């Protein structure tokens, strides 16, 4: 019986691990295909492979960045040959993925630079958007998202551990220079922890409750109601940031940075 037990356990473990390793293998394969296509300037294929990778649920800023680059370069190639159909929607999606990369890593310089290039392309093609401060977040969002969520989370945890660690030390240490120093340090650690906690809470709230999105269609007309027959409002262009307020039969009610609200088709908007 014991002789059978070991192979049985190993077999079951292999069976359990098989789907996971297959998934990893598939991802690696997709990544390889995407990177090869990108290197060989077949940006359409690179986009397809990258998009399939993203669909597996990976949240990786470099993946988003490369995908966005592929969209911009595909747009450029299509523009060179005057292929209007091929370049449609590319800039909006490029901006979406640059924004996603920056959401994960706010200090991602290359992404910020390329995002600006993509926005300039949109402005060059459709003219500068008339919505004032369209790409500018309110102050509290800028403060809360100033650091990446991971950095904030680890900083907050570290400060938490340090705070209570010092408290324990202070309780047991005799009165003296070291104890006084620790008490002073505790005040600073506590204050820093409070700030980090507030920023983390703000960041989490922003992630969970504020549905910041990007217009991915080249152009979309905002309407007063969730119906194509409703009165037209301003035309929005690719890359414009909006906040989704609610859904309604294939339409989103969105709010612009200037607090103007209206409806756009769900297909024209994607959450960052």
């Amino acid at each position: 019986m014991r002789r059978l037990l070991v192979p049985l356990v190993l077999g079951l473990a292999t069976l359990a691990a098989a789907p996971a390793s297959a998934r990893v293998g598939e991802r690696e394969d997709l990544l390889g295909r995407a990177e090869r296509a990108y290197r060989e300037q077949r940006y359409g294929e690179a986009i397809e492979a990258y998009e399939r990778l993203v669909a597996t649920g990976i949240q990786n800023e470099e993946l988003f960045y490369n995908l966005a680059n592929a969209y911009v370069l595909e747009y450029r190639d299509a523009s060179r040959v005057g292929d209007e159909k091929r370049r449609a929607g590319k800039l909006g999606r490029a901006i979406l993925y640059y924004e996603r990369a920056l959401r994960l890593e706010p200090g991602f310089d290359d992404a910020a630079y390329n995002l600006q290039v993509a926005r300039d392309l949109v402005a060059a093609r459709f003219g500068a958007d008339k919505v004032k401060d369209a790409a500018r977040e309110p102050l509290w969002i800028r403060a809360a998202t100033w650091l990446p969520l991971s950095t904030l989370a680890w900083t907050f945890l570290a400060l938490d551990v340090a705070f209570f660690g010092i408290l324990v030390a202070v309780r047991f240490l005799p009165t003296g220079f070291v104890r006084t120093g620790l008490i002073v340090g505790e005040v600073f650690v506590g204050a820093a922890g409070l700030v980090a906690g507030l920023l983390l809470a703000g960041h989490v709230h922003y992630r969970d409750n504020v549905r910041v999105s990007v217009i991915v269609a080249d152009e979309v007309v905002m309407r007063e109601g969730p119906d194509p027959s409703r009165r037209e409002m301003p035309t929005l262009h690719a890359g414009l940031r909006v906040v989704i307020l609610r859904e309604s039969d294939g339409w989103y009610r969105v709010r612009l940075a200037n607090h103007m609200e209206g409806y756009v088709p769900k297909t024209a908007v994607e959450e960052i």
Partner: protein
Amino acid sequence: MLRLRLSIGVVIAATLATAVGLEGRAWAQPVEFTLKVTPTSGTIHEEYVATVQIVTRGVSGPERFWPPDFGDFTVVDQRTSQSTQWMYDPVRGQEIRSSETRRYVLRPRRAGKLRIGEARLRLDGVEYQTKPVIVEVLEAAGGLGSGTPTAPGSAPAIPPPDPSIVGTTFLHVVPDRTKVYVGEQVTVTWYLYTRSEVLKYEPKPPRFDDLWSETLYEPQNYLNYTEDVVNGRTYSVAVVARRALFPTKAGKVVVPKFHADVATMATPFGQPLRLSSREVTLEVQPLPPGAPAAFDPAYVGQFTVEASIDRDNVPAGESISMQVVIRGAGALRRTKIPTLEFDGFTTYPPRTFDEKVDTTTALVRGERRYSYVLTPKRGGTLALGPIEIPYFDPTTNRYEIARSDVLKVKVIGDPALLAGGAGGLGSGENVIARDIRPAREIVALRTRVAEKAWRHRGFWLVFAAPAGLFLGVVLADKLRERLRRETPRARLRRARGRARKRLRLAELHIKGGRAGKFFGEIARVLSEHVEERVGEPVAAMTREKLRDFLKDRGFPEETIEALVRELENCDFARFAPSASGPGEMRAALRRVRALLTAIEKVRPVRLDEEAAA
């Protein structure tokens, strides 16, 4: 013993002698022995000055001096000046230094890279030599205006000073010309003439209004003297400043007085005297009419322009970089960044530039390098240039134009299509030309930990853990403290524990039929329990004394009687164990348990409390 002392004396004497010898050798070395030539590049028509500087410690100079081999230069003038100075050396303290300056005014016989050989000297039997100097002599004429500006540090024949200012020590100003155009270089030199040894010199340079100034020469550590004869008297003469001045407006422009505080052996008590040179008035002529369009008035002199591009094939949508280099003689630092426009390109002018200005030659020369970004607006082969920089040449009194070569660029594709395509950008603005930054290598396809972590329950558990740990530590500490505290309740708890143990032991004695040990055990239980309650030993008390003692402590009468009876019972049974069977022992155990409960219920009165009451 005597021999040992002699040996030590010899060693000390030898060491001292060696030290003195080394010191003497170090003393004899020249502090400075250099050969300098100014300028190190220029034209064949200019004069060059070779200066050999010899500074030695002490009052004696070198034993022998060999001048440099001037090769393809002709020596047209030669002067030697000597001086002695008191110096303060941080290591040696106050000391005397002798300075000897030998100047050779040279004229080149041919163009090319000409070598001036090393100068040599012998001092205390040791020979020293300088490094040779290479001078680049060009064929092209470089002179501007009516005269030839003098080289910095050179010693041309100095125009005689006005007799009215001549004294023992005075400042003499010499401009190389007084009639110039706006923007043309005037070289002004200020000399210090003195017949007495200068103890202190502190210059107070003037502020130049309506004149752009470049410093050509300023003495660094000490003044280099030559000799000149004024009114039959020999003076030591040193250049104290030489400036290239460029008038910025027409009319009469005044070069202000140069002041200096100078103390000499002749000034009373060695106090410094404020000396001033005379003013110089320049007659500045406006530039003649007919200036070309886009003429920058700072371009007065002689200039050339060169242009180059980083590539001559460019895909539509990309940019090229154009380097523009403007070289010449004049106030290059005053010039503005040229505004360039090319047909078929959008030009992005630079905000900064690289600049090199050489003020070691007679004329201020230099170059500026600008980098322009050009974005093609249409496809095909496009021409860049020529770039034209108009300037006024005072030597010919004419406006000239410096031109670069025409450059060709092949633009592959149509940038206009890229910019907006059909229905695209009307202005032709080509923003796609900005390259995006390249893709990143994805080393590991991982989702960021924190993206999931902060949603995970584990994150909040980790967050709460330090707080929980702290609370646990505090509670454990409190508990331990409390347990340590000596209270009636704590004593009772301890007594109960002990009683439980002894009663368990007593039960074992019942089972083993050891009556003597059983009664001994329960007698101890009762005594210890009472002792714990009252806090005093009672085992050694007689029954009568115990009765009184417990009565005083507030024990009820029946409890006291039951206790005394049980203790007496135990005493009896211990000494007659065969009379007690298991049944009797169990009955005794039950009684003792009841008695222990009764003892626990008593709240003993402490005598000190009673006394206080």
